[in-house]
């Protein structure tokens, strides 16, 4: 994505040929239009990368959630989305008793989880079996727009690996836009500023180099 990234608004005509389309567009009378405010990308397929919008969970997404409530069989988890997610007791790695649920995961805990399923009416189920389950403690939570997550991770994880390395922090990015940073306080502050920089300049060219420069200059 270069400096001259083309911004489109909902309803803009993008292409007269409805071939290979991606997100953020719709077809009407054989023509492709943008349905969201964002950056036009025509590299592999025609799509619009949104500049804003709420996180809508998709199956297999890894998210950072906050436990808000415990009922008789599941933890209710806020995932920075219009839809609350549920983590059923059966998804906990290992057998536990209903009466002990709050001993394992408490209200207010920050957890890393995977979206197991999204139902027809947007009923969202999580699981923590697949990845190594952890409760995030002692770091700093930063919330960014989920639309910037792909850029923050970078191609093949290049951007986030670089930030981790240069800032000497452990960083975890949820696809829902929650970022958790752990390290020495001054390093955490540095990493946070690098994340902010990526969020702001997500759609400009030469960003990785600028972030490296920034991190080196401020170490």
């Amino acid at each position: 994505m270069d400096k001259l990234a083309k911004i489109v608004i909902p309803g803009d005509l993008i292409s007269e040929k409805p071939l290979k389309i991606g997100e953020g567009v719709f077809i009407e009378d054989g023509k492709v239009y943008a349905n969201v405010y964002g950056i036009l990308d025509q590299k592999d397929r025609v799509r619009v990368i949104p500049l804003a919008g709420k996180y809508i969970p998709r199956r297999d997404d890894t998210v950072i959630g906050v436990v808000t409530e415990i009922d008789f069989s599941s933890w209710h988890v806020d995932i920075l989305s219009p839809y609350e997610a549920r983590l059923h007791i059966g998804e906990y790695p290992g057998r536990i008793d209903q009466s002990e649920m709050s001993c394992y995961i408490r209200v207010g805990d920050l957890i890393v989880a995977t979206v197991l399923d999204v139902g027809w009416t947007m009923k969202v189920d999580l699981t923590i079996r697949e990845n190594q389950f952890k409760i995030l403690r002692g770091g700093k939570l930063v919330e960014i727009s989920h639309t910037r997550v792909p850029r923050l991770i970078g191609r093949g994880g290049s951007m986030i690996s670089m930030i981790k390395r240069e800032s000497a922090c452990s960083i975890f990015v949820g696809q829902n836009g929650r970022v958790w940073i752990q390290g020495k306080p001054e390093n955490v502050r540095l990493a946070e500023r690098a994340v902010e920089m990526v969020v702001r300049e997500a759609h400009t060219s030469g960003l990785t180099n600028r972030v490296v420069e920034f991190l080196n200059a401020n170490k």
Partner: protein
Amino acid sequence: MADGVYTFFKDGLRLDGRRKDELRPLKIEAGVLKRADGSCYLEHGGNKVMAAVYGPREVHPRHLHNVTQAIVRYKYNMASFSVDERKRPGPDRRSIEISKVSREAMESVVLKERFPRTAIDVFVEVLQSDAGTRAAGINAASVAMADAGIPMKGLVTSCAFGKIDGEVVLDLCKEEDNYGEADVPVAMIPRTGDITMIQMDGHLTFDEFKEGMKLAIRGCDQIYELQREALIEKHQNDLKAKE
């Protein structure tokens, strides 16, 4: 006016120097509020309005939700100090009706089925009113919706036409509205040309109506360009703000 005491044209131009088919000056700025998911500040003639969009978000009260799509809610509110004589705060019958027709003007472009069980809330606050506040509110709300990243099949744009001294004109100002013979607010989707709101009161012949619709559509096309510019400018400003 019919009795000829007051005239609205001088040398073919209107009181404020405009031609019959000319809009009042507009200024549109997107993304002006920090907490809202999307926002817009808009000035149109003497109107100053602020629009904020929240959502899609959980619906409260819960029973109002729809399991197949998002509900859109639209609240138009006039600040008590927006008019010469202080307006009593809170919703009145006029603002209830304006909220309803404005919501209906916007609903058809929103891809509501993407967000079952949620609400998309639009709040329009009129800070200073001239004539045409509902159109100004819709224009601002439309930009705020896009700014919030809500998927839509196009923006909605609105302006009014009216009749003064027996002449059909675009975009009445306050004096014209107070003494004019008709006022017709129109909203449309410039991309398709479809009309999404029309109201009329006053006195018009069928031919005058058709003539006025032509003016309103041209007016909407011009406003639409300003809406799009505001959104593009917002992104550029975000980039500039980096240092």
